[in-house]
């Protein structure tokens, strides 16, 4: 690596410099952002930026090695987070961030692997992958932005849309039962499960630190406002008004069973840590059981 540093940089023709802008701001967290990538694409009042900030504050607080932390995302508004981070980041196909991250982690176990994506990406098109990654207990952290709809495509209903809620594809109100992500993650075998809202910035940051420090499959759900999509069609108000709603209607609990944390339309929001257990990871099992056996038989 050091020898490479001494070599001259390649000459980049001007036409190759399509989108790259020189210069950084002077915000203390700027070192976690890719140079020239801000402003981001998220709408005013959107909660993804808050969750994104909580994530980089977690990196800062726990001093996670930027060279060894990898973020993988799927498709959607939340999926764009990967592109702003000054880390190795992969913006993959819709729903496939978790299996992509599984490959990264198993091929290079020293990488701290984080999936940052949305509820539709992770639980509809990617639903099969999250339950199997949790079952295998692959050592990774999944941060799921839950805004109850598909924001990128203009606000369609999805696997977390509450009954009654209106979206562009549930114009008469949603008549499907939504997933309770906390209960699902626990049932699938996650070692750590927590839920916070975009209002709980400090708790969220600390929870992400805890999740990333956890050896095993950790899952953090972040309830966020989508003023442009979900909130507008349900007359929930601006981003600020939704934050006020979170303040009045969320409650921190450590006694509720995950099955009792379902989110109803305009209902109370149980937040906190719901699962924190120890169990061997995929790689621990692989090394201690399979490789041992293979060596004995080889």
């Amino acid at each position: 690596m050091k020898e490479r540093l001494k070599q001259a940089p390649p000459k980049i023709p001007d036409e190759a410099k399509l989108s790259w802008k020189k210069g950084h701001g002077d915000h203390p967290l700027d070192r976690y952002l890719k140079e020239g990538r801000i402003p981001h694409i998220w709408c005013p009042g959107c909660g993804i930026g808050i969750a994104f900030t909580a994530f980089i504050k977690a990196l800062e607080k726990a001093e996670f090695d930027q060279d060894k932390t990898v973020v993988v995302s799927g498709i959607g508004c939340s999926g764009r987070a990967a592109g702003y981070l000054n880390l190795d980041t992969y913006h993959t196909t819709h729903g496939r961030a978790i299996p992509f991250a599984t490959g990264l982690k198993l091929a290079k176990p020293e990488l701290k692997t984080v999936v940052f994506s949305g509820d539709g990406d992770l639980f509809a098109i990617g639903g099969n992958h999250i339950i199997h990654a949790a079952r295998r207990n692959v050592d990774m952290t999944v941060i799921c932005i839950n805004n109850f709809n598909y924001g990128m495509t203009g606000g369609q209903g999805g696997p977390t849309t509450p009954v009654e809620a209106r979206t562009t594809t549930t114009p008469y109100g949603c008549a499907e039962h939504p997933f309770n992500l906390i209960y699902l993650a626990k049932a699938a075998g996650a070692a750590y499960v927590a839920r916070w809202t975009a209002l709980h910035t400090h708790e969220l940051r600390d929870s992400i630190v805890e999740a990333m420090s956890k050896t095993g499959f950790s899952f953090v759900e972040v309830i966020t406002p989508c003023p442009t999509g979900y909130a507008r069609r349900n007359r929930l108000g601006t981003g600020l008004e939704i934050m006020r709603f979170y303040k009045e209607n969320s409650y921190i609990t450590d006694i509720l069973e995950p099955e009792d944390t379902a989110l109803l339309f305009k209902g109370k929001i149980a937040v906190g840590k719901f699962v924190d257990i120890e169990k061997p990871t995929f790689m621990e099992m692989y090394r201690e059981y399979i490789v041992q056996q293979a060596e004995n038989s080889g």
Partner: protein
Amino acid sequence: MKSNTVITGTHFITGDDACAEGGIAAGCTFFAGYPITPATEVAERMSKRLPQVGGVYVQMEDELASMAAVIGASSAGARAMTSTSGPGFSLMMENIGLAVMLEVPCVIVNIMRGGPSTGLPTLVGQQDVMQARWGSHGDYEIIALSPSSPQESFELTVDAFNLADIYRVPVIILSDEIIGHMTEKVTISETEKIKIVHRKNPACGPENFVPFFPDEDGVPPMALAGDGYHVHATGLTHDEHGYPVITADAQERLVQRLVNKIRKNEEKIVRTEEYYLDDAEVIIISYGCSARTSLDVVETAHGKGMKVGFLRLITIWPFPETKIRGLASRKNVKAFVVAEINHGQVVYEVERCAAGEAETVLAGFMGGRIFEPDELYKVVQEIAN
């Protein structure tokens, strides 16, 4: 354990097993897959072999996940592969497109069976040739190799890993049920005699590295996850920095390069095998298991004094265009007979390359069995007369 890495020596194994051993010999350390007939044996052998050689085998929940995991592992620097057949190959198309766009080297073994849909799980077909080339949406080029024996299954799998790394592209082994389940002698040479070519590393440090800026061959050096380069890779159309740019200009630059890095290197990539072409008037073109029967027909015809030659395609994609155009322009060449187990796939490429200079005839068989030499001989005889 090191002695187990490459099983140097002579073995009596199937084409499927030979693909797995080819992967091991090429230094594959990651396999993600899903069971499917007639490719399951590749996964089974890898599940046994990889833990012996310090690699990781993981059985994923489906082929979508298998392909995604393979790309993830390769992004972290592992030589990674998967294996499948028709229905699973269809599912892999999504992320084969991602591998093309992210320029992540990987190897996909497709042991072709009869389709469409569930089709003939246990019986042969060669119906995925066009899917290998065009199956994922959008414009791209890919490399596909077609073995005609277990020995070649071993050798081409090694080559596939090298080509994938050289061109940063998914490479598909287009084998078939007959070759995959055929047991033959496979000779594996000493480790040091197996040619391994790795992907290019960045020539400069992270400060000056532009991750998708290509060298003269059209292929950018690859920085791996965890190496400190902080690379962003996206399936969106992107610029040389890897950042999404949703414009016609960026699309033109990127897709042109993705296509050209294969097309312009056609002559370096393409391999064929020739029999009796010098004075041939009719040339049989075939590949995979069909090539074995074709060779028998050519020998019979030649024995009877007929001017019949044979071109076996080892590389199917990029298509051996220059080779076939050259043959079509020869005065003595009157016709090509393309023998394949499908309704006509490679025949369309041959017809395109022949460009009217030679007649192109399909000897197509529907699958479920390999055709008898007599069946192909009749077609050849008719054309020759």
